């Protein structure tokens, strides 16, 4: 046995060397980066039967509170409505939503599940930036179209990921528009920005810098590590910088914690925050600390007078028996709406034909998102945000959708 083991090891060592030689040929990237400008009606496909089209998405269902589930509910409500009216091209739509726990590896794993196990036809929706970014390269190699994932990032929305069709504005654009708006209307003395360290905070800072430009207003950027146990230093830094406008792009819990720290040291600047802070669950808990906070608005408010908005609210209420409950319901509905339009417009139910249809989308009004336009090399379908303000236990629109 001793000698056998040794022989086995010797063979193993030789195999290692052999493999190292064999592998010494360098690297290549995965294939499949074509832009699919043409519709191939005979392309082999999966996820489409004579009676059903299977779609998939991943969201942080268990780690980000109740909101992502509301996104799924919003999409499902729209598909239910379409299915009840006969479906798309005579087929019912089935949506599979998987939990990615906001963890990139888990997200990639779940996307593999969806594509290889559940055999989905396309990705429709989804929520969360780092988790989607982990999936994007995989979707590229598999040439699976991804329609309207909510993943604000400057990495996406361009031909680096030609199969990904973005309807969420990235943080550079979002903070640029917000900052410009504040500059135009409130004559601020100085800006502060507290952002989650890393790409999210950096993108936001870049957007603010672009808007501030040569106006000479100072900007203090403080990157924050999620879960900092004492936020007094950040609050004090902001206070001592003299910033009278503080922009925030933090987790809801750190936003709440920072506002409490500001309260403790008697610092009361005007506040502006990323779109997520218009979520009702945040306002219910932290509304008292956030009065007057300006929040970027990516989706229309359900109480707007616009007829497209009214139509959406009506349809949603009719379908679910209740009014849409906020950001996430609307987001899910809009994701489903664009997906169904692409499926309906597609000359055939193949992936390339659906992408062909997406490329033709021009000024498509969902009643929720600003008008969407894609093109042969345009993947950022929306470039505008509006502004709302937290007042009492709700938000009020203060500026309509506006592009950069």
């Amino acid at each position, binding site marked *: 046995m001793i000698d056998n083991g040794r022989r086995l090891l010797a063979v193993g060592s030789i195999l290692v060397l052999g493999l190292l030689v064999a592998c010494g040929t360098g690297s290549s990237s995965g294939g499949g980066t074509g832009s699919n400008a043409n519709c191939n009606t005979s392309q082999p496909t999966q996820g489409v039967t004579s009676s059903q089209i299977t779609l998939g998405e991943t969201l942080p269902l268990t780690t980000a509170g109740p909101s992502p589930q509301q996104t799924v509910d919003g999409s499902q409500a729209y598909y239910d409505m379409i299915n009840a009216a006969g479906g798309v091209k005579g087929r019912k739509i089935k949506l599979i939503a998987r939990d990615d726990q906001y963890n990139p590896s888990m997200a990639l794993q779940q996307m593999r599940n969806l594509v290889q196990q559940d055999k989905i036809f396309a990705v429709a929706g989804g929520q969360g930036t780092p988790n989607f970014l982990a999936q994007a390269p995989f979707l590229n190699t598999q040439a699976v179209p991804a329609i309207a994932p909510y993943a604000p990032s400057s990495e996406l929305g361009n031909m680096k990921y030609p199969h990904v069709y973005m309807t969420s504005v990235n943080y550079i654009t979002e903070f640029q528009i917000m900052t410009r708006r504040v500059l135009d209307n409130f004559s601020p003395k100085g800006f502060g920005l507290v952002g989650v360290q890393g790409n999210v905070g950096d993108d936001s800072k870049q957007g603010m810098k672009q808007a501030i430009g040569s106006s000479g207003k100072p900007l203090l950027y403080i*990157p924050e590590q999620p879960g*900092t146990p004492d936020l*007094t230093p950040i609050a*004090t830094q902001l206070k*001592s910088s003299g910033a009278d406008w503080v922009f925030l792009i933090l987790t809801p*819990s750190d936003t*709440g914690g920072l506002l409490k720290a500001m*309260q403790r*040291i008697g610092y009361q600047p005007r506040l502006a925050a990323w779109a997520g802070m218009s979520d009702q669950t*945040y306002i219910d808990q932290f509304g008292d600390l956030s009065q007057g906070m300006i929040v970027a608005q990516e989706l229309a408010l359900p109480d707007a007078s616009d007829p497209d908005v009214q139509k959406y609210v009506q349809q949603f209420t009719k379908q679910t028996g209740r009014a849409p409950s906020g950001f996430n319901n609307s987001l899910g509905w809009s994701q489903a709406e664009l997906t169904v339009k692409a499926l309906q417009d597609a000359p055939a139910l193949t992936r390339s034909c659906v992408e062909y249809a997406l490329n033709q989308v021009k000024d498509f009004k969902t009643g929720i998102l600003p008008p969407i336009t894609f093109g042969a090399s345009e993947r950022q379908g929306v470039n505008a945000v509006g502004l709302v303000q937290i007042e009492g236990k709700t938000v009020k629109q203060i500026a309509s959708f506006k592009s950069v």
Partner: protein
Amino acid sequence: MPAVLAVGSLGNTLQVILGGLATGGLYAVLLLGVIVVFQVSKNVNFAYGELGVIGAFVGYVLYSTLHWPTPLALALGVAAAVVLAAVTDLTLIRRIPDRQGFDLVVTLGALLLLTAGTDVVFGSADRQYLNLFSDKARIVGGVYINAGDLLSLGLGLVALVGGHLIVNETGLGVSLRASAEDPAIARSMGIDVLSLRTAVWAASGLLAAVASMVIASRLVLDARYMTPVIINVFIAGMLGGLDRYWPPMLAAFGVGLYNSLAGYIFGSDASTPALFILVLAVLIIAPKRFLEERHEARA
């Protein structure tokens, strides 16, 4: 690496020092629980902070959802943590096999279990906790002396002095030290070592719950907010040594202050490397004898 931020006026620096000492005071409250548990049962409880979270949550549900009177709700929250801590000792800690690292493993399991359980039972949304006086302040020389900060600092000082008195000046302290030194001798002195241990665990639950409630009032309430806090508490305990009293307790204040000042001077996201440098520096400077946890019996 962000550039070093200009240190503002003296008033602002004092403000940060106050905040840091307040945080350090809460670390001291938590660390007192860790120290007494370690001294009497030689165990470290990774799930310690989560016991406090559950206490804070129980209080929250009682006052916010069921609208019970706040003092009663908080008292019952503390009681829940006390019971849970005692049950942890009775059901888990007593059965831990005598192998290196197994107390860490078992309490790590309890941490995962309790955190996920808290998420499921109470939901994973962030909640705002009671203010606990942090909306009341007086300005002295440009510094906001906030009642919430004073509460935290005061609790820390009470833990510091009270812990010292109980451990060193009372009969209870004698029993504690006897059982810590040699359980067999303590038993022969008529001390019920096991009950004493459970009582100490229960007391640690009380400390955890009180500190967790105050920390929730300074941050927010969710299933995970105590995790970064408790890591800092353990680091303070590690720097001072869990088998001593004054060094770790003072280290708790020190770590709170150091972290806040480092965050103020070098930027918030520099706190990880700052803490790392501190720990490494202590490891390099500290004499060998200071770092040895226990010697093997006579060689």
